[in-house]
């Protein structure tokens, strides 16, 4: 949880922008696939604001905005519309952004997170749709605006659909803010609303933070931008809490402003005085028809909702008898949850399958840098491996080697068992007895303690057991080792 202490209560609200999973932009049929594209190739007269063109809203963007709203328990509005938000940056050629303002698509929702004192409900004020801006490049050596005589602009991203989720100021620590964004991202991914990649800019967060006054009233709000990872959200907010406490503690006052997070320096810097709604001169967008959603349409959206993360957690816990920790890890990504479920459906016992997926599969993915969607071991193959371990045909140690072979070399289960030598070299019977005898003989001092009854807590016995397993390179059955070892020591 949070590593900073605050003398004053902390109040945090977040605005989270999600790039919607559409093929085309919000108001024109240009591609949204702009990463790595030559600048200004995904453009058309509409997103370039050529006079005489008119925007028409993307049907899928409306559906995804509504789906996100439903996932957040919001009321979906039958009627919503757009405004023009005027500003002076040339990152949109119209000199205004088309955004929902007074009547957003979804209002009054919530999401539950793991807060510092247990489960906590964070209220969502609304979800609205808007277009993204283009990308400005400043031709200075450090890429910053300072010193630039002019700017360069790439409109490939201009007009890409975003849904903005605006929370109420219900978070009271940086850790809670980070957890809220994690849960929101997980929901967006489950719903296929957005890939939620912060590094590529598909998920962007603006944080509003204030410290309450002694009388309980809200303090002056500061907005922080440019946080590109979950970690940076936490760090930026922690920095700001320290800064604001220090300023207030020395008799200073907090200025309402927008500050930019500098991740390399670990500081926030003043960017500009915070705009108010009147500065943007919101104006109804008369070129766009309002979004009218009938009750039947909203009902259809609700019926088509996939299983939500918390629903899956409950089901996994109920159906598979898994612990809270196991369920949390397995359902973090819906693809991992689907993989686990397929392993169980292919005949693996649910408990052992859960261990193998969350420990070994994730270990291999971590080591190889891969993702579960392109993991080389099919659920059926892993289920086969887990069953062999369950039936004691293979030890867990050898099983791990076999999983590695399957994942890294692309072997079938049978080939991997053959390659590992596990089939031929299973250590049992006389071979195991011989190995145990040699271990007992080589550790006469330890066996003496055990035989004399001084090993009250069984630590020495465990030590010998471990030595045998190590010497057998995991090819012996731990239970059989215990039995033979006890006999060998005359217990």
């Amino acid at each position, binding site marked *: 949880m949070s590593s900073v202490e605050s003398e004053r209560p902390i109040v945090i609200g977040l605005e989270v922008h999600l790039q919607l999973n559409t093929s085309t932009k919000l108001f024109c049929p*240009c591609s949204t696939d702009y990463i790595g594209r030559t600048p200004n190739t995904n453009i058309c007269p509409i997103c370039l604001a050529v006079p005489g063109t008119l925007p028409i809203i993307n049907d899928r963007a409306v559906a995804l905005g509504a789906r996100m709203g439903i996932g957040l328990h919001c009321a979906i509005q039958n009627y919503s519309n757009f405004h023009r938000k005027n500003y002076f940056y040339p990152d949109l050629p119209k000199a205004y952004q088309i955004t929902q303002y007074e009547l957003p698509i979804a209002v009054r929702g919530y999401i539950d997170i793991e807060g510092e004192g247990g489960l906590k409900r964070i209220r969502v004020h609304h979800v609205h749709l808007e277009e993204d801006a283009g990308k400005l490049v400043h031709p200075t050596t450090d890429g910053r*605006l300072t010193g630039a005589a002019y700017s360069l602009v790439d409109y490939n991203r201009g007009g890409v659909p975003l849904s903005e989720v605006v929370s109420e100021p219900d978070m009271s620590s940086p850790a809670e803010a980070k957890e809220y964004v994690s849960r929101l991202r997980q929901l967006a991914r489950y719903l296929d609303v957005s890939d939620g990649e912060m590094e590529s800019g598909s998920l962007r967060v603006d944080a509003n933070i204030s410290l309450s006054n002694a009388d309980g009233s809200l303090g002056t709000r500061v907005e922080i931008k440019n946080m590109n990872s979950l970690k940076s959200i936490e760090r930026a907010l922690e920095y700001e809490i320290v800064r604001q406490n220090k300023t207030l503690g020395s008799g200073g006052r907090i200025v309402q402003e927008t500050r930019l997070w500098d991740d390399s320096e670990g500081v926030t810097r003043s960017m500009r005085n915070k705009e108010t709604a009147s500065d943007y001169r919101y104006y109804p967008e008369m070129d766009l028809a309002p979004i009218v959603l009938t009750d039947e349409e909203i009902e259809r959206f609700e019926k088509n909702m996939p299983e939500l993360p918390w629903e899956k957690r409950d089901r996994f816990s109920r159906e598979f008898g898994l612990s809270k920790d196991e369920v949390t890890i397995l359902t973090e990504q819906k693809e991992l949850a689907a993989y686990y479920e397929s392993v169980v459906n292919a005949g693996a016992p649910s408990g052992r399958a859960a261990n193998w997926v969350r420990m070994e599969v994730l270990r291999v993915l971590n080591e190889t840098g891969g993702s579960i969607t392109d993991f080389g071991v099919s659920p059926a193959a892993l289920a086969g491996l887990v069953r062999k371990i369950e039936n004691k045909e293979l030890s867990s140690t050898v099983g791990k080697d076999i999983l590695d072979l399957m994942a890294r070399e692309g072997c079938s289960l049978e080939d991997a068992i053959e390659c590992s030598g596990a089939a031929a070299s299973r250590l049992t019977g006389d071979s195991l007895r011989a190995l145990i005898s040699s271990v007992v003989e080589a550790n006469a001092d330890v066996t003496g303690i055990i035989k004399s009854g001084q090993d009250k807590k069984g630590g020495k016995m465990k030590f010998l057991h471990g030595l045998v397993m190590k010497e057998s390179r995991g090819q012996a059955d731990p239970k059989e080792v215990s039995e033979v070892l006890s006999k060998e020591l005359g217990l």
Partner: protein
Amino acid sequence: MKMSVDREITLRMARAAQIRVAPEDVDHMMDSINDILSFCALVGDLDCTGTPDFTWRMKKRPSRRPDREMDWEDRESFKERAPAIEGDFFRVPRISSGV
């Protein structure tokens, strides 16, 4: 209801619109805005009972379109028509510091 602006609001509007107004022009600008507001009040007083809303254009256009990509053949022409380009980028004046 007729609204009006005073010098202070006039200057605030000019600042928001990033329009530089010389001190001697403020009164003239204020009068112009008040004339516009008076006209709006006049229009607001009109009895429009029974007059249909001006919606024919909206009704003629689809309100939503399918999420289907369409290629524009002549994208290069946009750059050719731009006031200034540099490489693949549009070149624009240095952004202002905001309002």
